[in-house]
């Protein structure tokens, strides 16, 4: 597989990239810091990625960086057949309620710009014979909830967009995979108390890679979150107003 990974220097993306490297995939990493990208590229090469791992500058807050980044990836890999997006912004709900700029940044990054990046990727994948677009949304997008109102809203929009893509373009060869991670123990969630069903990045990544290989449109990871979210989606409003979850 020839894959472009946006946001794979850390957390879930890192775990997924390592699995792909270990099986000998060709990879190109997109991200903001050249030094960080280079360090991850060397790591993936040592772990077995085929050929040199390419890198390109790409910033989720600068949509004008998307096209040049994907262009460079296309050149370096001589075409690609998968794009994986794990990049995203996270901020505490409380802070955003008092800081509209922070809220604007998160909404732009996690919804508008992520969608724009997907649009750019979709066009390029469809120009060839198609391929896989795997994007990390979140279980936070499944229900409006007190601790993740803004983040959840952005992810809800993103999930909806990915579903639409899947309906329209699957027949033309674009396989959309919407990943809905629950709580995963990564640097991003360090310091938070892991809830029941918290996942280890590697196990979660294995599940996601299987979904990519099979082109499954939606994957919950860890799997238990599918059931958890089914319950949460069906809780009456009266309950949702009372609980802090």
């Amino acid at each position: 597989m020839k894959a472009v990974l946006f946001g794979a220097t850390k957390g879930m993306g890192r775990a997924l990239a390592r699995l792909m490297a270990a099986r000998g995939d060709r990879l190109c990493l997109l991200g903001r810091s050249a030094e960080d990208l280079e360090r991850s590229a060397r790591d993936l090469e040592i772990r077995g990625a085929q050929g040199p791992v390419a890198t390109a500058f790409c910033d989720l807050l600068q949509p004008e960086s998307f096209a040049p980044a994907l262009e460079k990836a296309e050149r370096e890999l001589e075409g690609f057949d998968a794009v994986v997006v794990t990049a995203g912004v996270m901020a505490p709900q409380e802070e955003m309620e008092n800081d509209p700029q922070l809220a604007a940044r998160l909404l732009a990054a996690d919804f508008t710009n992520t969608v724009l990046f997907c649009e750019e990727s979709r066009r390029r994948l469809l120009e060839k014979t198609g391929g896989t677009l795997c994007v990390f949304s979140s279980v936070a997008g499944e229900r409006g909830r007190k601790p993740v109102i803004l983040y959840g809203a952005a992810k809800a929009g993103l999930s909806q967009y990915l579903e639409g893509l899947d309906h329209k373009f699957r027949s033309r060869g674009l396989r959309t995979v919407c990943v809905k991670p629950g709580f995963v123990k990564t640097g991003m969630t360090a310091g938070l108390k892991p809830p029941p069903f918290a996942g280890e990045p590697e196990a979660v990544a294995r599940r996601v890679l299987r979904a990519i290989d099979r082109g499954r449109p939606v994957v919950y990871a860890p799997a238990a979150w599918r059931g958890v979210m089914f319950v949460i989606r069906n809780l009456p409003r009266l309950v949702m107003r009372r609980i802090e979850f």
Partner: protein
Amino acid sequence: MVDGLVFKSEDLASATESASLTRGLGRSYGDSSLPAGAETPVADATAADRLLDFDPDSGVLRAEAGASLFDLNRIFLHRGWFVPVSPGTQFVTLGGMAASDVHGKNHHVDGCFGEHVRGLKIRVADGRIVECSDSSELELFRATIGGMGLTGHILEVEFTMRRIASPWIWGESERIKNLDLMVSGLKEAARDWPMTVGWVDCLARGDHLGRGILMKGRWARPEEAPTKPPSRKGRIRVPFEFPAVALCKPSMKAFNLAYYWKHFQHVRRGILHPDAFFYPLDALDDWNLIYGRRGFTQYQCVLPHADDNGPARRFLELFVSAGGMGFLCVIKDCGAEGKGVLSFPRSGMSIAMDFPIHPSKTQIIVDRLNELVIAEGGRIYLTKDTFTRAEHFRAMEPRLEKFTAVRRKWDPELRIRSAQSVRLLGDRA
């Protein structure tokens, strides 16, 4: 477990900016990786686990300090490479291996891990990031190897991997009747085998004192080894916590005897899975559950050789008579002292044992063992220690002065500290 502030990030350089200590996978039995106090933040290195450079010609590997030995084994074993020195568990980080200057079954020929470390990148107390090695900032380098994290936060480790003939082990294990035979067996085996270790039945007394199993191994030659690489076999788990009654003597004895008589053949030899040879305890995932909720501690010391086997004999006799129940006792003849200022091993017999923590007895047992270690001119292994008193530690460590001098030079306010350094070196909490 002590609660405290923990910073964990893929970016160890930033996580260590305001931390007072860095820890790895927490496999040290003692309190060296625990915070000095509830307000002193600790950086968790385990998310900083990238491999940065590997030269397949020389075997030199550079990696972030949180990279685990488990990961390295998974990546390198089947390609014909292994770490130069491995401790008895693979759930350790490179930073932890350097900070404890770990030793393995090959200590008598290859020394400690630190002997194979070419350089370290360290964040020192004033915030600077320093590259140190034998040719630059030598003092800092040597104090950091075996320095239990007290000289700075290790960000990167560069060391030389070892080429291996195959990923399998050719091993031989032999049933040994008593301590004299165990010690002479270890010394003899050291001449022909690159890896040796003895397991001793801690509860045997009198004529049987020191009986156990002597294990020897080397990497199998390609023509001896199975053609397929060793599998990642499923780990046996201790499924539930043994009730505390299982800790009473008879059952411990049964465990020891069972282990001993399993080897009813005098000698066994053959091909071994590397995990079974290096990491038998990892196979029991939560094996500390065997001791029940009260937890357990480990004690490890090295006693200089004597013409007779007096030191080891006196030590084991004292342990048994002091009521230190334990089933695990590992004995190993160490080679020469390494380059780390405070590194544990020195030429002599190293003895390590596990025993369950008892609210009143454990301190007394450790005190008595330490008095004997001081009298014999030995020392203890800091990474395993939780109970040693400061005055005992000072009495067995003439090297402490030198270590403290280097530490103070780089960290005059002693900002970097741990629960262990509060206990043993008198640092502020």
